[in-house]
C-alpha cells in the first residue's frame, strides 16, 4: 500500500475523522427530530459567542489539557491509561487535603502546594497498576479500569464518613479557606477587561499550557523522553538497547497519573472550592478522546482540548436552551473516539486510495 504524504497523515486524517463524527452526530440529531444546524448555532453562540461562554469553554479546556496529556504520555510508552478518571479523583483528594491543612496566606503558595499534592496523589493511584504491569504483566487497561471503581468507592467512603464536617448533610468536604481561592479570569487585572462576568476559568489554565510545553520538552528533548518513545515503538528493541522496561513503565505511568491528578486543581480548587463526589465528572475519560484527536502531540492535545471544551460548554447550552438532552455530548465524544481511535485505518485506506487516483492520473498525463 502506498504511504500517505506526511501532511495528509498529520492534518487530513484527524480532520476527516472529525468530519465523519460530525456527520453521524448530525444524522443522530435528525433521527431524534432535531435540527443539526440550529443545534450547531446554539453551541457556537453559547460556547464561543461571548466572553462569558469562553470563560466556561476555557474552564473545560483546562481540565481536558491535563487529562489529554496524561493519556498522551502513557500512549508514547505503549500503555493505554484508562484510569485518568480515578487518578483525577485521587488528585482531587490531594488538592482538598492540602487546601484544608492550613489557613493559606496567599493563593500562590496554596496553588503550588495543591498542584504538588494533586500530582503526588494522582501518581500514587497510577503506581500500583504500573507496578503490576511492569513486574507481573497484569494488563494495565483492566487494572486501571478497576482502580477507577475503587477510587470512586474510596471517595464515597471518605466524603460520607471522614471528610464531611459534622452537621452537614451532603457528602462533601468543608469549604476551603479564603486563602486557597484561585483568581478566576474575571479577577485578574487586564484580563478582567475581557471577562467582565464571573467565569469558572481560572489561573490553572496557565499551568495546563505550561505542562503541555513541559511534556513536549520531556518527550522530544530529553534522554528519558527518547527512551519512553523508543519503548513504546518496540519493547524488544528498547530492551536490546539497554532501556530498563520496569523503569520506563513506572516513570511514564507516574507522569501520566500525576498529570491526570493535576486536573483537579482546576475544578476542585478553582471552581467548587470544596471536594465533592465525582468531582472529575468524566474528564478523565475525555482525555482519551483528546489524546487521540490531538494525535498524541502536546500541541494537538491543546487544540483538541479546546475543541472538547467547546463541545462540553456547547452541549450544556443545548441542554439549557433546546430539547436536545445534554447526553448528546457523550454521543459526540464516543463518535470522535471511534473514528479517530478505532476506525483511523479506514480513513487512512480511503485517503490512500484517493491519493493513488491522483497519482495515476498524473502519471497518465505525463
Amino acid at each position, binding site marked *: 500500500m502506498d504511504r500517505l504524504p506526511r501532511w495528509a497523515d498529520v492534518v487530513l486524517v484527524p480532520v476527516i475523522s472529525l468530519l465523519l463524527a460530525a456527520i453521524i452526530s448530525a444524522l*443522530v440529531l435528525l433521527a*431524534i*427530530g432535531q435540527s443539526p444546524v440550529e443545534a450547531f448555532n446554539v453551541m457556537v453562540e453559547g460556547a464561543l459567542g461571548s466572553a462569558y461562554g469562553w470563560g466556561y469553554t476555557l474552564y473545560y479546556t483546562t481540565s481536558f489539557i491535563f487529562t489529554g496529556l496524561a493519556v498522551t504520555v502513557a500512549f508514547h510508552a505503549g500503555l*493505554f491509561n*484508562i484510569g485518568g478518571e480515578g487518578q483525577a479523583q485521587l488528585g482531587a483528594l490531594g488538592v482538598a487535603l492540602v487546601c484544608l491543612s492550613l489557613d493559606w496566606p496567599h493563593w500562590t503558595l496554596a496553588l503550588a502546594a495543591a498542584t504538588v499534592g494533586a500530582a503526588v496523589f494522582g501518581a500514587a493511584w497510577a503506581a*500500583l497498576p504500573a507496578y*503490576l504491569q511492569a513486574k*507481573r*504483566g*497484569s*494488563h494495565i*487497561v*483492566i*487494572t486501571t*479500569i*478497576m*482502580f477507577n*471503581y*475503587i477510587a470512586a*468507592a*474510596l471517595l*464515597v*467512603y471518605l466524603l*460520607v*464518613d471522614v471528610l464531611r464536617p459534622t452537621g452537614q448533610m451532603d457528602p462533601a468536604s468543608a469549604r476551603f479557606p479564603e486563602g486557597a481561592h484561585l483568581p478566576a479570569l474575571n479577577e485578574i487585572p487586564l484580563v478582567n477587561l475581557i471577562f467582565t462576568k464571573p467565569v469558572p476559568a481560572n489561573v490553572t489554565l496557565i499551568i495546563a499550557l505550561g505542562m503541555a510545553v513541559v511534556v513536549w520538552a520531556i518527550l522530544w528533548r530529553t534522554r528519558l523522553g527518547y527512551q519512553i518513545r523508543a519503548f513504546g515503538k518496540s519493547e524488544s528493541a528498547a530492551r536490546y538497547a539497554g532501556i530498563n522496561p520496569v523503569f520506563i513503565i513506572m516513570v511514564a505511568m507516574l507522569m501520566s497519573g500525576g498529570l491526570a491528578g493535576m486536573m483537579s486543581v482546576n475544578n476542585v480548587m478553582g471552581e467548587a472550592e470544596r471536594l465533592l463526589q465525582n468531582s472529575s465528572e468524566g474528564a478523565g*475519560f475525555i482525555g*482519551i478522546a483528546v489524546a*487521540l484527536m490531538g494525535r498524541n502531540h502536546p500541541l494537538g492535545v491543546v487544540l483538541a482540548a479546546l475543541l472538547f471544551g467547546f463541545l462540553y460548554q456547547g452541549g450544556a447550552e443545548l441542554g439549557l436552551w433546546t430539547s*436536545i*438532552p445534554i*447526553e*448528546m*455530548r*457523550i*454521543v*459526540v*465524544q*464516543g*463518535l470522535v*473516539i*471511534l473514528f479517530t*481511535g*478505532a*476506525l*483511523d*485505518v*479506514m480513513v487512512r*485506506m480511503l485517503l490512500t486510495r484517493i491519493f493513488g487516483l491522483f497519482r495515476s492520473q498524473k502519471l497518465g498525463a505525463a
Partner: protein
Amino acid sequence: MEYATLLQLLDSTLRLATPLLLACLAGLFSERSGIFDIGLEGKMLAAAMASGAVAFLTGSVWLGLLAGIGASLIFALIHGVASITFRGNQLISGVALNFLASGITVLVAQRMFGQGGRTPPLSGDARFNPVTLPFAEALKEVPILGPLYFEVISGHSLLVYVAIAMVPLSWWVLNRTRFGLRLRAVGENPAAVDTAGVSVVGMRFAAVAITGVLCGLAGAYMATALQAGFGREMTAGRGYIALAALIFAKWRPVAALWACLLFGFFQALALRPDVVQAVVQVKVPVPFLDALPYILTVIVLAGFIGKAIPPRAGGEPYVKER
C-alpha cells in the same frame, strides 16, 4: 445470621449474578476468539433500552427481548467492523462504543417517551415474571432443603435459568465442537487456522455476534426482569464487573459461573449492610463492599491466586500476509 436471611441473600445473589453471568459468557466468546471487548457495558445498556422500549410499546416481553438482542448485535457488529475488518484498536473501539451507548440510549428514550431518558414502567406480559418450579409449593415444608428450593432456586424469571443453562452449553460448544475448537484456535494462533483453510475473519465475526446475542440477553434481563423498565446508566458498571469475572475465571465457562455468583453475592451484601455488620461484628463501609469485586480482580491480575493468562492472540488484529 438466621437461615431466612441467608436464603434472602442467596436469592438476590442469583438475581444479581444473572446479568453478570450472561455478559461474562458474552465476553468469553469474543475474547477466546482474540477480540478484546471492553464494550460489554455499552451493549448491555443498548439492549436494556431497546427491550424496555419495545416491550412497553408492544406489550410483549418476547418482542422486547428480540429488540434488545438486535440493538446489542448492532453494537457488536460495529465493534467487529472496527476491530476485525479495519484492524483498529479493540480497546479504544470498546471504550468508544460504551460512550456511544451511554449517550444514545438516553437520547432515544427521551425522544420516544419524554420521561427524562427512561422508558415507562413495564407490567404484566411486558416483563419476564417469576417462574415457580415444579413441586416448589409442595416441598416448601421440607426442613432446610424445602425453603432453599422454594426461596432460592425457584421463583426467578426465565432468563435466570437460561443464563445458568448457558454455562454447560458454552462449555460444550467451546470444548466439544469443531466450531469451538476453531474459535479457540483463532484466539491463540490465527495463522495456523488460516493455513488450515478456515476464515479467521469469519470465525471472529461469528464470535463477536455470539457476544452480541448474550449481551442482548443480559441487557433485556436488566430492563424486563430485574427491573421494570430502562433507566439511564442502569447497567451501572456491570459490564466491567463481568469483565473482571471473566479474568477471575481465567476465560473458562464453569469458573465464570462461580466468579459471577461470587461477585453477585458481593452485590447482594452491599444491599444489606445490616447483615454484614451483624455477622462480622464490625461496621463495614458499604463502599468497601461495592469495591470488593474490583479489588479481588486486581489481586487475581497480580497473579496471587493462580495466573490469569489471556488468549495469546487477544487484542491483535490478524494480517493475512506481510
